[in-house]
Structure formats: C-alpha cells, structure tokens
C-alpha cells in the first residue's frame, strides 16, 4: 500500500486561484454593465 502524499496546499491554491479568476472577471463585467447602464441618461443629453 503506497503512502498517500500530503499535498493539500497545492490543491487549495488551485481552487482559490480558479475562484478568484472567475469571480473577478464576473465582477468586472457587472461593474461595466452598471456603468454603461446609467451613463447617458444623466449627463449625455444637454
């Protein structure tokens, strides 16, 4: 029976990186949509 290596740190790092990248991109899109959504109504028309 081979001994199972202890390498949970790498796994946690990978799971955190994936979540950060995906959530980060989502937030970026949400912010952009919000900015686009209110821009011209307020000051665009004079």
């Amino acid at each position, binding site marked *: 029976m081979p001994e199972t*290596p202890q390498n*949970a740190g790498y*796994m946690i790092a990978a799971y955190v990186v994936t979540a950060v990248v995906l959530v980060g991109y989502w937030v970026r899109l949400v912010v952009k949509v919000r900015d686009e959504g209110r821009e011209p109504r307020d000051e665009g028309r004079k």
Partner: protein
Amino acid sequence: MIANRDRGLAIARRGQLIAALGLVLLAGVYVLAQRFTPTEVNQGLAQKIFYLHVPAAWTSLLVFSIVGITSALYLWLRDERLDLFAASSAEVGVVFSIIMLTTGPLWAKPIWGTWWQWDARLTLTLFLFFLFVGYLSLRAAVPDPGERARFSAVVAILGFLLVPFVHLSVYLFRTIHPMPVVLKPSAPSLPDSMLRTLLIAFAVDLVLYIGFVTARYGLGLVAHARAAELEARPDA
C-alpha cells in the same frame, strides 16, 4: 448599425445572470469534488486539481476553435455580429486559459516535482494563450472598426491552423504529459465517480462561458450603439 443601447444592456444583464448561476454551480463542483469524490491514492489531494484544470483546458480549446470558425465565417459573410462574438469569445478564452495555465503547474509541482515541462500539450496551451493575447492586442491596436474585424479574423484563422503544427512539432520533440484518460478509443480509464465530477465541472465551465460571452457581447453592442450615436451627431 447592429444594435441599440437598451437591447445591448438587456443582453449583457442576461449574460451576467447566467454567469452568476455558473458561479453558484461552481461552488457545487467544489463541494462535489471535495466531499463526494474519492481521493486518489498515489497522487493524494493534489489530484483534485484535475477537476478544475482539465475542464478549463477543454473549454479553452473549444473557445479557441469557436473564435477560429467564427472568424472564418466573418470573412465570408462580413456580418459585424460574428466579429463581435469572436472578440467576446477570445476575451473569455483568455480567462479560461489563465485558469488552465495556473492550475497546471500547481498540479505538476507536487506530482512531477517541477512547475513546468516543455511537453507537447503544455507548450500547446501556452501558445494558445499567446495567440489569444496577440489577437486581443491586435484588436486594441487597430483604430478602424472594419479593418480591426478583418485583421483579427485573419490572425484567428492563422492561429487555428497553427495549432496542429505546434502540437506535432513538440510531440516530435518529446512528451511526458498524462495520456488521454477520457477521450480515447477504449473505455475511459477513470473511476465512474471521478469521471462524473469531471464532466459536471466541464458542463459548469460551459455555463460560465455562455454567461460571460453573452455579457461581453451585450457590452459590445452598447459600445457599437454609442459609436453610431457619436457619428450621427456631428456636434459632439
């Protein structure tokens, strides 16, 4: 003129929602991979990186093909929507290739003992990333919209054709990457529970891709509408 602003915003919001659903499902994948999938004996917990890395790699390759095919269609039909869709896909493709390129070394370090190897598939994925970045840099550097669309389509098609050559040339060089365990002629050599988690993770990545690309496409429509509006108002 391919859109008005409100329609673009509506599409972007829908994409945002789909992506949010994808993120919730991703949390589900995390739980599934941690709680309900057995730990591999020889590799330990690091093997579970597989459920993030492999689906991200598949998604990147798929998105890359989508960009190539859409670009070829654009040169043929010259429909602005195809160009916008290709550009949106390329941006989302970069997101997935970043995941692929970071989770890969995190798995390789404990298992191979080294962060990086010049193996066929690794090199291929790195070049996919370079091509995506080159494609997006080119888009950012061409001011004229028509020219931008044609130039980037040409680069995407060339990149699409390059992929088999990169693969073959590094393959002739050497390879130590794990051989395919799912898509191979015989039955998948993966326990059912692991295979199920992997396929679910891939499906979730696809949901995320669809959500992101829809949001990005909607934002693109808004930008188009704004450009058209500026053109229509000579005083602005």
